[in-house]
């Protein structure tokens, strides 16, 4: 069991990871990097769950982490499918090609 006082540190780390991921999604234009950034955000949440679960001495945090990992895999599976479609159409993975919908 982790020292409760260390929880704050873990949460600060998780928050930093989350912000890094968010910035990545916002500034990157390559869809692969956007997906990686999304994964970082999800795993930041997962880290927070693990930390919280161990602070309370419950397995719930780890169970939620399993759910998070599963979601990450499912999302990436569909997202990579879309990436392939994007690449086939534009011969590039730059999302700036997608600019027809405006207004």
């Amino acid at each position, binding site marked *: 069991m982790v020292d409760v006082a260390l929880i704050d540190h873990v949460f600060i780390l998780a928050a930093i990871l989350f912000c890094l991921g968010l910035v990545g999604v916002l500034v990157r234009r390559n869809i692969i990097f956007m997906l990686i950034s999304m994964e970082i955000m999800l795993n930041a949440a997962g880290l927070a769950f693990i930390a919280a679960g161990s602070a309370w001495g419950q397995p719930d945090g780890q169970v939620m982490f*399993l759910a998070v990992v*599963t979601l990450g*895999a499912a999302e990436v*599976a569909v997202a990579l499918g879309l990436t*392939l479609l994007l690449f086939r159409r534009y011969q590039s993975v730059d999302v700036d090609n997608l600019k027809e919908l405006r207004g």
Partner: protein
Amino acid sequence: MSYGASLITHLWPLVLFLVLVIGLISLMLAGPYFLGSRRNARATGEPYECGIVPVGSAQYHVPIPFYLFAIFFVIFDLEAVFLFAWAVAVRETGWAGFIEALVFIVILLVALLYLWRLGALDWRTFRQKRDRASVLLR
């Protein structure tokens, strides 16, 4: 024990480990510089790839089936995560847990069946399939 003291007791092995790792790596990098002989042949500057001469740029397109298999791996890998969690608690969950795990596996098996019938597990490229089909027709 105060918070700072507990932090130090928790962290000192990590710090020591870091120092050792950095020291070892510097030693390994610096050693050859002083001990080794200098030679400048044609292949000296090239990256070592198990004896094969690397050819071409590193930025080539990975064929699409590789992505597909990466996705399958990720998904079916997670099956193991859940089954492991069940395996740890197999005595506590009893028959109900067994049936639930069975349902879980069957659903994933159905998904695999679907993928197989869809042709997603076919490793060959489109061109290979077409060539094979033309061979069979002949």
